[in-house]
């Protein structure tokens, strides 16, 4: 039991992804390797087009890699069938997107309950109580029965955070979760995720361009040209970013064109 608890939550081994469009092949991920420990909050950095979103989609089991493997909770996910992946995603993975992506015809409470009720095909009292608790936790107790369309941008993103946590996932994948918010709302949303991560021990992997937020994470992974270029270990304090890579974002940004993730090649 202890050894399994100490084992990494996620082990990514040589993940590659090539997009094929007629005669052209675009390699986006060229062999990504890293691990995530349980309860970590990790920032994934890299310029636009470096493959961050593709990697998150693969780790979230929404997309299959061209090759490579990854294990989560000791389970090899690349070999699972579509239905098993769907069940696994529902119970172990939470998503937070840059654009909140709430379902506009449903209330905040229904949006949060959706992953639970959709799995059971039925709303339950327990599900409702957990959704209400989560909304209270993100400070939206008084907005529970508001339609998603009536909420502000920051409120919507907080509902999205609550929804990602509904089924108590082991891993939350957040793709630019603050990218569409102003500074104040971004800080609030990030603060909320940090607090929840500390309280629940949920592992967070966030892709972000926001250096300030990245520095507040326990660890950072840098992706450039489809590979992890540096992988600092967990170090106490917040100084590792400068020590290891100086200003890695600016370095990457200077060397990598905006769409540099894929080197388009004729097949």
């Amino acid at each position: 039991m202890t050894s399994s608890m100490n084992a990494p939550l996620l082990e990514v081994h040589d993940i590659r992804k090539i997009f094929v469009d007629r005669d052209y092949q675009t390699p986006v991920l060229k062999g990504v390797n890293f691990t995530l420990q349980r309860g970590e909050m990790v920032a994934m950095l890299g310029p636009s087009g470096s493959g961050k979103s593709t990697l998150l989609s693969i780790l979230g089991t929404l997309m299959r890699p061209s090759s490579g493997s990854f294990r989560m909770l000791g389970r090899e996910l690349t070999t699972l069938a579509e239905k098993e992946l769907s069940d696994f995603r529902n119970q172990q993975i939470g998503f937070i997107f840059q654009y909140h992506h709430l379902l506009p015809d449903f209330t905040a409470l229904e949006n949060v309950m959706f992953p639970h009720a959709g799995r059971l095909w039925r709303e339950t009292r327990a599900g409702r109580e957990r959704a209400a608790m989560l909304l209270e936790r993100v400070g939206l107790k008084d907005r529970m029965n508001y339609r998603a369309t009536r909420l502000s941008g920051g409120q919507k993103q907080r509902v999205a955070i609550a929804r990602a946590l509904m089924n108590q996932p082991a891993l939350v994948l957040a793709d630019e979760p603050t990218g569409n918010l102003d500074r104040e709302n971004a800080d609030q949303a990030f603060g909320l995720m940090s607090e929840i991560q500390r309280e629940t021990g949920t592992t967070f992997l966030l892709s972000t361009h926001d250096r300030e937020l990245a520095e507040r994470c326990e660890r950072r992974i840098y992706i450039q040209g489809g590979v992890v270029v540096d992988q600092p270990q967990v170090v106490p304090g917040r100084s590792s970013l400068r020590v290891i890579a100086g200003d890695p974002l600016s370095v990457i940004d200077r060397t990598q064109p905006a769409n540099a993730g894929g080197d388009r090649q004729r097949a």
Partner: protein
Amino acid sequence: MTFDYTMRFDLKVALRYLTSNRLQSALLIGGVAIAVTVFTFNAALINGLAEFQIDRVVGSSSHVTIEPATPRPAVAPAPEGTERLVVSQVALERREQIKQWRSVERIIETLPGVTGVSYNIVGTGLVTRGEQTLPVSLKGVEPARLSAIAPIDQTLVEGEARLGLNDVLIGRKLALDLGIGVGQPIFITSNQGRERTLTVRGLYSTGVDSLDGRLAYVNLDTARVMFDLPEGLTEIELKLADIYAARDIARQLADTTGLEAIAWMDRNQRLREALEGQGNSGNIIKMFTLITIIVGVASALLLTTFRRRPEIGIMRSFGISQRFVLSVFMLQGALIGIIGSLVGCFLGWGFSTLLASAGDGTRRLPVDPSLGQYDVALLLAAAASIAAALWPARAASRIDPVEAISQ
């Protein structure tokens, strides 16, 4: 109470989608309702018209007629590969009759759904009035069963529906042709050469010229004398509660009595063909209404699927199964079909009722609102809507979440 803990969640999502875009849903339901209105009104009209025509023809005649069996000569089977031609001649010296009719009467009494029986002797004759001589069909009936088949008592326009031994009831047309009225005598000669003077007791008018101009009713005992049939009958007529059971009853009677039993539809081939043609035209209209439902619902739901692609992608991203998404869209189709067809059935019934009656009790169109086939319409329209939803629902369930989210 905001939440319903017992409602299926896919049904809740389907209902929410339908109510969130009320105009589109109303148009869709309206489309199905119009198609079902056409379906049910068409059924009420075609079936009502058929009933009207059948009633006109069959209402004043028998549904099953039992006649003496036609004797068929016994012929040895032809050797294999050859055909045998047989010439037979009807035995003119022997008259066909139903001798053991009392035993047939007992069989008829056990049959369900028989609403009237008439034991008749029918033959031909000539009626003479002054210099006028006209051919007539003479029908000898028991006075108590006079109106068992044709409603003579209801169609009586003059005199009374009484058949004493010296009485005769004739149609108004025949009376006009002969220039005769109630209470006056006529001289009748049967085809057996028997002559009798009878008094016209009443005149009837069924509206069917072949009856009103040629048929004369006499007492069964009078007919026995005129046609030299002291025991037997020439036919037994039956009226049924369900006219469409006539063939079955006829077959059953033929099997048990050995006599010939003929159903009304086999006597009226032209009517049957006309009704079949009418029914087929109605079915074509019904088929097109169903196609309209399928095309309408499928195209609208496909548009909805396209519009909701990102939402479906999001649902799939948090692990909602393809089956759940499929079910949400199938349920939308089913709900549109069921609600639309209920509305359509109500409208169809309303139009049929409105157009069936002119308000003063007379009939405006031969529409029978009770024959609108509402159950069939409901079932077919719901099935068509579900079938129409299948394609969009499958498309929705197969949406690639990554592609849909990035839309």
